[in-house]
């Protein structure tokens, strides 16, 4: 009976691993104020990222990143590194980088809907990210 149970667990784990293979890669960009090519390059160079969303809006540059499984341990460090690089390339813009899922969810939504009150939504998102548990 024990053997059966263990085999079932292994099968379950295998399925989970296989399922995990199907995640969307690539970089989505929304641009209405500045040149995005530099940002894209910085993000593409980083091997630890699996996907990213870039959004330029007026004086804001928002970047949502998705890091690969084991890099998640250093999520905070990666955020900081990318933020520094982006700030160097875009000195006039306020840069916000986050690996939080909420960031990508909201940015994707904003890009899709292309809403008018984007500025307000962005401010709200920024304050959300500052909250601690």
């Amino acid at each position, binding site marked *: 009976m024990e053997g059966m149970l263990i085999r079932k667990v292994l099968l379950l784990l295998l399925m*989970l691993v296989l*399922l*995990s293979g199907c995640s969307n890669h690539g970089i989505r960009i929304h641009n209405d104020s500045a040149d995005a090519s530099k940002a894209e390059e910085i993000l593409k160079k980083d091997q630890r990222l699996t996907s990213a969303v870039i959004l330029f809006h007026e004086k804001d540059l928002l970047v949502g990143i998705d890091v690969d*499984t*084991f890099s*998640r*341990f250093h999520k*905070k460090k990666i955020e900081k590194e990318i933020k520094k690089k982006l700030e160097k390339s875009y000195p006039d813009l306020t840069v916000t980088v986050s*690996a939080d899922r909420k960031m990508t969810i909201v940015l994707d939504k904003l890009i899709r809907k292309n809403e008018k009150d984007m500025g307000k939504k962005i401010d709200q998102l920024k304050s959300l990210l500052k909250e601690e*548990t």
Partner: protein
Amino acid sequence: MSIFITAFIVGGLICVVGQLMFDVAKLTPAHTLCTLVVIGSILDGFGMYEPLIDFAGAGATIPITSFGNALTHGAMAEAEKHGIIGVLTGMFEVTSSGISAAILFGFIASLIFKSEGKA
């Protein structure tokens, strides 16, 4: 979506540690849970619990170890701002949603449910 797998595995492994405390160390459930809470608290002292949450999501926030982590984290955040007094004020400031939810739902349950001795 690898976060689901890491949540499953890390959460499962923390429970396996608990099971080993039950079976091998012969601890009672209460002793086991207290030990795990203290472990969570110490891990946060070394700054190791937050990365684990980043890695495993709910796999690290759902086990009881995260309770120790949350309390320690709150206390340390205050201490960082206000020094030694902050440890105390931080202790009183942090509340765990787990405790409040348990109190509230526990009371509601006592209003609506009766215990049944069914096997």
